[in-house]
């Protein structure tokens, strides 16, 4: 234990010696990091779960279903996420009388409107990614499945989805990083995410470089870790698509 403290002492001395990187601001950055990761992870997860059935329905024979899902993705992909965030944040809060209902429990915390906007946004992008890769399923695979007498549902579950979702992996990895970067706007609705923490510390100490360069580095670490994870997944799951040597 004593050895540990001698190990930490130089770090503590250094931290005592400066105003900006103090335990207090680190606590702030930590809150920011957890908020960012939480926001991005939950919205990506729900978005992913929503996107699979939406992508299947997006290619259905039913005109109304197909067109309405196309319209949804068109709206959410064609407008800035910031507008969607504002709509989710103010759209509910300004309904007269809503503060007396149970819904206010959720709406009082900006995290939930932000989650709603981010989830719908990423679900729209992911739907299009999956739709594209489902459409690109080789015809032979589908014919083979039919020849085996598989029902449509079974074919989707056993043949189309496993290969389509794998092929969507590179594009989905980009979407994950895009979402991480896009989540930086969460601080405009008073969520202390990483960018919000940086902004607070910038405003408090008037130290833009210390604040923004530090979170930029954090975001970079996060982005490259995600990238490495997807590279690894691609290597494992897309091994069959690699050109033969």
């Amino acid at each position, binding site marked *: 234990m004593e050895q540990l403290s001698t190990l930490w002492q130089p770090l503590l001395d250094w931290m005592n010696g400066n105003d900006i990187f103090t335990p207090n601001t680190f606590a702030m950055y930590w809150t920011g990091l957890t908020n960012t990761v939480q926001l991005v992870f939950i919205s990506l997860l729900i978005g992913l779960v929503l996107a699979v059935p939406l992508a299947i329905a997006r290619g259905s024979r039913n005109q109304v279903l197909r067109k309405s899902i196309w319209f949804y993705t068109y*709206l959410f992909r064609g407008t800035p996420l910031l*507008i969607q965030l*504002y709509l989710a944040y*103010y759209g509910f809060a*300004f309904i007269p009388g809503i503060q007396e209902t149970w819904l206010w429990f959720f709406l009082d915390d900006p995290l939930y409107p932000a989650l709603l906007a981010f989830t719908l946004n990423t679900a729209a992008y992911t739907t299009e990614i999956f739709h594209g890769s489902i459409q690109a399923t080789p015809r032979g695979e589908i014919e083979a499945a039919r020849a085996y007498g598989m029902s449509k549902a079974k074919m989707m579950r056993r043949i189309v989805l496993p290969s389509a979702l794998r092929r969507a992996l590179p594009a989905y990895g980009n979407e994950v990083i895009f979402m991480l*970067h896009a989540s930086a*706007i969460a601080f405009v609705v008073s969520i202390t995410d990483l960018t919000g923490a*940086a902004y607070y510390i910038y405003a408090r100490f008037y130290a833009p470089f210390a604040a923004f360069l530090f*979170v930029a580095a954090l975001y970079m670490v996060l982005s490259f870790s995600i990238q490495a994870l997807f590279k690894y997944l691609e290597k494992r799951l897309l091994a069959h698509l690699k050109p033969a040597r």
Partner: protein
Amino acid sequence: MLDLHGYGYRLLEGGLLTLELAILSLILAVVLGLVTASAKLSSSIVIRAIAKAYTLVIRGVPDLVLMMLLFYGGQIGINMATDWLYYEFDVDIFVNVDAFVAGVITIGIIFGAYMSETFRGAFMAVDGGLLEAARAYGMRPWTVFRRIRFPLMMRHALPGLSNNWMVLLKTTALVSIIGLSDMVKVAAEATKATHEPFLFMIPVALGYLAISSVSEWCFMKLKARYDVGFGAEGASWNN
């Protein structure tokens, strides 16, 4: 009907600002993208490494963080530089970083990195024999670029270019956060004042959709223009 509590005109002005910002940053991004793409294909390791580091950093950092770094940090950085110039050389200059310039520069730098990937692929798709032929005709490097390489490469670059432009257009919304009165900022202000978010946000959303629809049409025309001689619709020389 389109009065919108008196905000109608300001929203229109904001829309104009969004367009200006988007077009100026697109120009900067295309120039940066062309330069960086050329740098990535350069024979010098150092130049290639610089170009690669630039795209890597841009890919890792959110646009908003870069924008705030440039807007809030840029002024301090420039002040330090001008102070130094003043004390060392007695040169007195004052440079003001305003939100518009910071916005154009950041968005330009960010999309320059993305454009460079598009252009790199497009450069590589141009038949080397055509460039050799141009050189054999005695064209200077710049003339080769302007007359041969650029027109041929645009055909391959257009899909990526149009994609980047659509994303860029939506990215301009971020300037409202550093205080520029674009469509989104006006709508957010109006929403806070009148408590009617849908009345203002939906016209703005429609504005973005309208701009992207018009640009889609423009890109279709451009594609037809650069596809001349390649298209299947009988546009070749022998019919």
